[in-house]
């Protein structure tokens, strides 16, 4: 092709070669606009500052909390022995004695006068649960001193106490004696001299997994995912992380706690009654439902509320929108007034956001599923009404004419001439909304409209229950998955086909892009 031919083509198609300026530069201009807008938003929301201030370590810990839990032994230095404490509602039950805390016990002699009150207090603290099950004094705590009643007696007592302890965290470990702490991770190890209540001094330079902000202060030790520890001048606190969800089925107060599946099964099937008033199966079920940590019963109830909110909201909205759509369609009701009034009513319902309806109804009905379902009902009456009336306005008139020509009454014209055309569209739209409402009902719940949203939100705000959050998220995902498939199945059954992306057949649905909620 030579230059003449090119010029010739250019002369014949000026619109392709000399396009207006704005059209030629539309793409770079659009991209530039987007970039400028990004800069504007960066400034408007001060994103840079917020990202800088964000606590990313916290993010890692919270994410790890989704699938794991921590147990925190708290080892206090006494003069020449140690006390080991666990947090009050420990996941190990009221009498923890895990095998990854190795204790060395010896008989020591100490003066009763000054030291006795301290271990006595420690004992009380560590055996909080003993109101219910008075356990035998365990080895890790100095046994309650016989001289507890006469603490002031200035005599020396001989008793068993922990003189050294080792906390094992996978490949790392912390060996603790009253004046020396050895921290080992992999091949490296660091020895700290402890001057009680004064300072923590490492003997060697610190590796990068230990941080000491100023000389003599607390040392922060990291073992990666396995856990972390703080070496303080009066105690060592270790957090050991375990993969999984602790006490998911039975909590520590349950008589079934800590038993293997086989043991629980045999107890339920043939065991003696633990509680005389009811069978073991009933007791086990009750313990599961009222598990204090996981609150299964409550979570399931709230989840059911969310499902019910979406279901009732969508069904009621469809029922109400159905007759109103006939009123709004101008080819069905030839009255301009009625059309406009109904359409503006739909617009009003739709445009007052679901949030506003939810807040109003939460005020009206009090928090709970009634508020949520009313909000969904009101919003979706508007949206479904609009979609229904559009479907009605797009029908084929020939069927109606045919029915009318054989002398049918107006009602029968609607029934046999209109309904068969639009019913599949109506049902399909309603099913789409059912699906999408199952999702939005979760969010609506968080503003007080009931359901799992609120529970989820409360669990997140405490920042400690991330495993529960993940549990609820999994349940929600499961429900969404089930209802997606159910709605697809129903659509296929009722409509015969399901319009997927590869379906090249002409569609009966109105010729417009997807209505908003369908891509929600």
């Amino acid at each position, binding site marked *: 092709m030579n230059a003449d031919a090119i010029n010739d083509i250019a002369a014949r198609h000026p619109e392709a070669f000399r396009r207006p300026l704005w059209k030629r530069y539309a793409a770079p201009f659009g991209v530039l606009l987007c970039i400028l807008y990004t800069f504007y938003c960066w400034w408007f*929301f001060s994103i840079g500052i917020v990202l800088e201030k964000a606590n990313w370590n916290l993010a890692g810990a919270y994410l790890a909390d989704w699938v794991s839990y921590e147990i925190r032994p708290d080892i206090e230095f006494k003069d020449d022995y140690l006390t080991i404490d666990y947090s009050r509602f420990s996941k190990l039950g009221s009498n923890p004695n895990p095998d990854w805390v190795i204790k060395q016990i010896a008989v020591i002699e100490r003066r009763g006068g000054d030291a006795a009150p301290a271990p006595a207090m420690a004992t009380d603290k560590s055996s909080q649960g003993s109101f219910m099950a008075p356990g035998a004094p365990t080895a890790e705590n100095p046994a309650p001193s016989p001289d507890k009643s006469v603490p002031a007696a200035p005599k020396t007592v001989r008793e068993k106490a922990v003189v050294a302890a080792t906390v094992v965290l996978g490949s790392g470990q912390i060996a603790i004696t009253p004046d020396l702490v050895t921290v080992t991770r992999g091949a490296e190890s660091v020895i700290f001299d402890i001057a009680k209540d004064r300072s923590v001094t490492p003997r060697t330079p610190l590796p990068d997994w230990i941080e000491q902000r100023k000389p003599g202060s607390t040392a922060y030790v990291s073992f990666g995912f396995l856990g972390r520890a703080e070496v303080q001048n009066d105690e060592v606190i270790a957090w050991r992380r375990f993969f999984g969800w602790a006490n998911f089925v039975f909590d520590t107060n349950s008589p079934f706690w800590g038993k293997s599946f086989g043991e629980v099964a045999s107890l339920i099937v043939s065991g003696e009654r633990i509680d005389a008033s009811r069978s073991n199966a009933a007791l086990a079920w009750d313990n599961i439902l009222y598990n204090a940590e996981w609150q299964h019963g409550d979570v399931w109830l709230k989840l059911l*509320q969310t499902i019910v909110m979406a279901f009732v909201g969508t*069904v009621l909205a469809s029922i109400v929108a159905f007759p109103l759509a006939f009123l709004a369609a101008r080819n069905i009701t030839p009255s301009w007034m009625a059309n406009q009034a109904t359409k503006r009513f739909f617009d009003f319902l739709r445009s007052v*956001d679901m949030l506003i309806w939810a*807040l109003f109804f939460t005020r*009206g009905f009090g928090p709970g599923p009634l508020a949520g379902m009313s909000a969904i009902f009101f919003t979706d009456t508007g949206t479904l009404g609009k979609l229904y009336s559009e479907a009605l306005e797009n029908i084929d008139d020939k069927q109606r004419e045919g029915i009318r020509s054989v002398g049918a009454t107006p009602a029968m014209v609607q029934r046999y001439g209109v309904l068969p055309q639009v019913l599949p569209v109506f049902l399909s739209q309603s099913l789409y909304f059912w699906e999408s409402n199952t999702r939005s009902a979760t*969010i609506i719940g968080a503003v007080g409209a009931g359901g799992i949203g609120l529970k989820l939100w409360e669990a997140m705000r405490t920042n400690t229950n991330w495993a529960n959050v993940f549990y609820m998220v999994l349940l929600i995902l499961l429900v969404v998955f089930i209802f997606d498939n159910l709605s697809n199945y129903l659509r296929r059954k009722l409509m015969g086909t399901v319009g997927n*992306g590869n379906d090249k057949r002409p569609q009966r649905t109105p010729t*417009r892009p997807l209505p908003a909620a369908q891509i929600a």
Partner: protein
Amino acid sequence: MSATDVYRAPALSTEGALVEQHWRDLAARRRLYTIAGLVFLLLALSGSLWFANETNAGKFFDRLPHIADFFVELKPRDWFDPVRALFDLPSPYDDGSLKFDYPEGRVYLAQGIYIPEYFYRMIETLNIALFSTLVGSTFGFLLCFLAASNITASRWLRFTTRRFLEIVRAFPEIVIAGFFLAIFSLGPIPAILAVSIHTVGALGKMFFEVVENADMKPDEGLRAVGANWVERVWFGIVPQVLPNFMSYFLLRFEINVRASTILGAVGAGGIGESLRLSISRGHEAKTIAIVFLLFCTIVAVDQFSAWLRQRLVGRQAFAYGRGE
């Protein structure tokens, strides 16, 4: 079926009668299914309603008369008061309480020029929505080609991308927002992240379905002259899908305006938070002002987006996917 009763059927042959009988059986069975379905729906509905009523804080019939009370309570002192609340003008009822402190929230741009508080909050919400739609659609745009079967040959890449988009889409926005709320403090950024992440999934899916329905002839031409993958996508696919992408972008923006309002109400700032506070504190003039502003904005956004979409894609239909 009264029409068939009037119609006198001619005498049928044996085969005809058999067909007739068969048809009647089928019709009867279908009617039975329909009735059974409706009865089931009715049972499920009434059961659900009963359950909802039982587990609600207030009972339906106890609370019903009070719904109206709430709207009556919403009546402001005078009908000009919501206007003052909307434009942050001083109220004659100002008693130093939060209820009538309209000028407090003014955001000054310069001496004497201010944006009224609720307008500023509304701009914040709109910005959250627009920015997160932009971020989400950018990533959705990048990912959609990897998920489309006519562009990406590698099976596992397609599979991974699609599953990723699905998970991201189904993950509740509120959880993402709550998680980031714990890391960043209160503010709009958690909402932006939550809405963006959800948008990536939702738009990515819509986008790749559009791409899969694209005409492959330009692509063939480009392949014939030896274009690489990026060139094929950029010159062969993007020009034909861009109008539909823009249309979906606008639809998503509409949805995100609502979503960011709701997220605002749970602590992510913007107009949603103002609304929740004013409703729960019983500030009637402020509530009316905010509801009015929100209503107008949503109508305006919807209208604008509908108009723009009409210009972009006309009344052209494009085969769309299973929704969501």
